[in-house]
């Protein structure tokens, strides 16, 4: 029972202080789980990060579920996930309340309008990172041109055509590229 509470409060802290998404949460989780409470070894933690990266969903939820499960079964998983989500839930609810109350005000509109181009830029940056991982399995300076993955390049172009020309469902494009690409890899 005590371990459950410990876990719950650890993950509330992770949820509260992981500002800036995804990878920002990793050192926090490591600090709470490995260094402070000794609930996992560093090796187990490295495994956890590998698994979290391989599965869909935010890294902090993935690791909360994984740690919870490992130490206290399914109730543990639920409690840890709840802990990591709770601060975000309350803060965003507050923000949403103010946004929908005041968003039609001129000043608020001006501020929001200057945020939108930045959001577009951030999404494009994320897209380029994923594209270079798909095409070269590396990022920016580590890209080796001879390591070009032709199958992924064809899938990417095919995906764009499917989305823009045939208005194919995005989820279908993601899973379709997974299935077609895997078959292609084993045939070539």
């Amino acid at each position, binding site marked *: 029972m005590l371990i459950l509470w410990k876990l719950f409060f650890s993950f509330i802290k992770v*949820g*509260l202080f*992981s*500002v*800036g*998404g*995804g990878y920002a949460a990793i050192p926090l989780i490591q600090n709470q789980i490995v260094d402070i409470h000794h609930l996992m070894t560093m090796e187990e933690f490295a*495994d956890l990060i*590998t*698994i979290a990266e*391989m599965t*869909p969903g*935010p*890294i902090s939820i*993935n690791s909360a*579920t*994984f740690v919870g499960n490992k130490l206290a079964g399914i109730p543990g*998983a639920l409690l840890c*996930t709840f802990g990591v*989500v709770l601060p*975000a*839930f309350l*803060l*965003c609810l507050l*923000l*949403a*309340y103010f*946004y929908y109350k005041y968003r039609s005000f001129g000043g608020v509109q*001006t*501020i929001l309008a*200057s*945020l*939108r*181009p*930045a*959001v*577009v*830029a*951030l*999404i*494009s*940056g*994320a*897209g380029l990172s*994923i*594209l270079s991982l*798909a095409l070269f399995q590396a990022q920016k300076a580590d890209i080796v041109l001879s390591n070009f993955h032709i*199958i992924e390049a064809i*899938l990417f172009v*095919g*995906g764009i055509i*499917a989305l*823009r020309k045939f208005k194919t469902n*995005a*989820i279908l*494009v993601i899973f*379709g*590229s*997974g299935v077609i690409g*895997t078959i292609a890899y084993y045939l070539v």
Partner: protein
Amino acid sequence: MKKESLISEEILEINNYKKTEHVLWDLFKTMFMLSACTFGGGFVIVSLMKKKFVEELGWLEEDEMLDITAMAQSCPGPLPINASVILGYRMKGILGSFVAVIGTSLPPLIIITAISYFYEEFRSNRVIATALQVMRAGVAAVIFDVVYNLASNIIKTKNRFYILLMIVTFIMNYFLGFSAMLIILTCLSLGICTILLDLRKEHKARC
């Protein structure tokens, strides 16, 4: 004037839709599906949400989706969760937030719980590794499609300040490695400066 009445009609339509209990189930179902497909981080789900809620369902306007993303990025916690809290609130208040967050959290919870029982096998399985690698191509295609639409809408405003802001923040984030949080805060202060400048101009004009 005409545009305004169109918007208010739209809002009326959404409000009618809000009344049906259907919207909660739709919200849950959609967030569950999108969350299950979010390979590769927070901005993937934002792209998927934009396609689904703006283009397909027409629940949100494009600007609103960008605002939600900016707010979600500036709160602590995972981006998909934050975005679904705000979106849920927009659709059906606190209850909507609750339902949307459960929809978003369940897929990773179920998948990781299932995997934690045989993660050695999962981690060393070559077919899974290949599938995950090639799937990135599809994810990248979805993001590029969304970015193309968003960026061309910014360019269409012909506002040089916003276009420049988009290019500069892109370089800051992608090439110089500034964090998303820092970039949002910088633009927030820029926005506040614009307001102060406008106020000063007005003040001078009056004097």
